[in-house]
């Protein structure tokens, strides 16, 4: 009788293990799950869309710089077969087939590559519907905050079968972010007023990624209470706001240099101009929501709080 009981309990436990394993295998959620070939998984992207995938995608086309950078950063660069014109980081991405860009997608090129997944950033061109009709799924990455970026990195890790690398990367990024915000968001820290622009009078408004970065870097965005995510303000607005620091991004659209700011009508007496506290930052670091944003955060924090970061 004892043997039979023992066998029964062992059996139950074995069953339970198999059951849990099965559940774990077949669960649709990325948290802790691992994909392998032959499985059908449903993932949820940042727009809440459900995408069915059969197995690990190894013919990925990225039509925005953000997913490109993430994919390469997590070690999935070999699985990327096509990128858009703007994806120029890392260097290897430049050698891949170009498929247009989010504003002018070359649908034929994409279809011709016969990808099993297309990844895009926050811009979702209508042309993607055509791609979808041909049976090619697409997913959207749309990070609005730093934590969203971490989430995206982990998601892509699971998707591409590089969960471990991705998690390692994500973890290290989180550590770095924490290191910054521990200092910048401390209650005793005096937060300077910051005006940031990526083109003349084009700034980041509430709800935008740049706004979140400024907050994390320990600054007060003077455009933080305007009405849109990417407002266009005027000279008067900035004079009235009187920022302590001005930051402009250097990117393809940039035409200014620090001395130009003082020449804008009425700007001579703005604190930032008087103190000559006008800094620049690489546009990529604040507009590509991949691992490099943390570099951007660190740079911003150093600009805003030199006293905290040597």
């Amino acid at each position: 009788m004892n043997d039979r009981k023992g066998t029964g309990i062992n059996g139950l436990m074995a069953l339970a293990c198999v059951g849990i394993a099965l559940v774990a295998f077949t669960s649709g959620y990325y948290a802790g799950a691992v994909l392998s070939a032959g499985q059908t998984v449903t993932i949820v992207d940042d727009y809440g869309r459900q995408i069915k995938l059969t197995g690990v995608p190894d013919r990925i086309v990225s039509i925005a710089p953000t997913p490109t950078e993430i994919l390469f950063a997590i070690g999935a660069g070999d699985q990327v077969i096509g990128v858009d014109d703007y994806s120029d980081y890392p260097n290897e991405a430049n050698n891949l087939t170009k498929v247009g860009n989010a504003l002018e997608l070359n649908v034929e090129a994409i279809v011709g590559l016969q990808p099993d997944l297309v990844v895009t950033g926050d811009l979702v061109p209508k042309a993607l519907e055509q791609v979808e009709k041909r049976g090619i799924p697409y997913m959207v990455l749309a990070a609005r905050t730093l934590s969203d970026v971490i989430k995206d990195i982990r998601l892509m890790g699971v998707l591409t079968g590089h969960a471990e690398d991705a998690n390692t990367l994500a973890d290290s990024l989180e550590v770095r972010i924490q290191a910054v915000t521990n200092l910048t968001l401390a209650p005793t820290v005096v937060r300077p007023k910051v005006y940031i622009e990526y083109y003349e009078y084009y700034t980041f408004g509430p709800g935008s990624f740049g706004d979140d970065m400024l907050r994390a870097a320990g600054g007060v965005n003077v455009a933080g209470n305007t009405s849109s995510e990417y407002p266009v303000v005027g000279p008067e607005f900035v004079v009235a706001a009187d920022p302590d620091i001005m930051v402009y991004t250097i990117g393809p659209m940039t035409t200014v240099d620090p001395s130009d700011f003082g020449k804008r009508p009425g700007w001579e007496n703005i604190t930032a101009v008087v103190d000559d506290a006008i800094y620049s930052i690489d546009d990529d670091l604040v507009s590509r929501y991949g691992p490099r944003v943390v570099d951007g955060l660190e740079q911003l924090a150093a600009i805003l709080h030199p006293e905290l970061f040597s």
Partner: protein
Amino acid sequence: MTAWSSWQRSCIRNYSAEERNMSDDKVRRVSGSEDAERLGNARKKRALYIMALLALLVTVSFISILTGTIGPIGPGKPEKISFGDAFDALLGHGGSDSDYLVAIFWEIRIPRVILGGLIGASLACAGAAMQAVFRNPMADPFIIGVSSGAALGAASAGLIGFTVVVGDFTAPMFAFFTALVTVFVVYRMGLVRGKMYVETLLLSGVAVAAFLGALVSFLIYFAREDYHELIPWLLGALTDAQWSYVAIIAIPAIVGSFIIFLYGRELNALLLGEETAHNLGANPESLKKLMLGVAALMTAGAVAFAGIIGFVGLIVPHMMRLLFGADHRMLVPASTLFGASFLIFADSLARTVVPGEELPVGIITALCGGPFFLYLLRRSRTGGGSA
């Protein structure tokens, strides 16, 4: 019920039947002082209306100066100031912590209002002149290629590396230059054996504009992200207004509108046809060339600094014609003054409609101008009793 404008109606009294019969007889010269007096009143009426438009301009300007993202008239972002503070800043009272208010008023708003007025005046006055030269109420100051020429200049300036940046005059000068070159090319195309044929000129303008527009689009595409620079310019914006711009624009604007006003009589004759104008001694050839040149200069200046602000040049002269008739001695000054008021008003809206932000004023002129004009048109059709 005639569709005569009221100021004219008051000038001519109705004649009784027997008086009309008398006119079939021999020649009779007018010696009565009554009619002369009434017609003299016409001139006074004209002056009165001009004064009224001037008063409107001053009022609109004053209100506009007080309007903006920080108020006192406005959404109050990032902060709201009171009328008291505003007046203090305007008059130069107030302590040193309102220095920034003084800067806002005296270095941003006031030059902007004045610039807007000068540009609105230039565009409307040039528009009236163009409508007379082309004998077409649908003409606007951009019809001869000024806007596409300037756009090409601005686009190339951006591409070559000149900056469309505050304080740097390179791009505006470039745009001004290319605008004038374009006009000259179109003008030469419109000349046949030394005579200017307006139909040919019009078509050449359209063709050249299309061609240059395609070039600009090509440049934009080629420049990829740089096209963002051009969008506010293409839509027309007064964002970079400053005193130096005002000083430069003032001359072509004021002198140009004055010259056009001086030729009001001849422009009237031109509307009746070139041969008629010639037979009346108005010399249409030199008149057309002069008007075209002056209008082109005024428009090119406006476009070089503020981008392509549409509808002002087309709609303001129309509106004035509906209100005051087609006589250019009234139409030109009326258009000039109302054009200024209109643009200043549109710019006030551009600065306050979206709290904290500034829209390109060209959007507002299009949105405002169209419906308002339609309303005026309807009123003149149904209420004025034409035909």
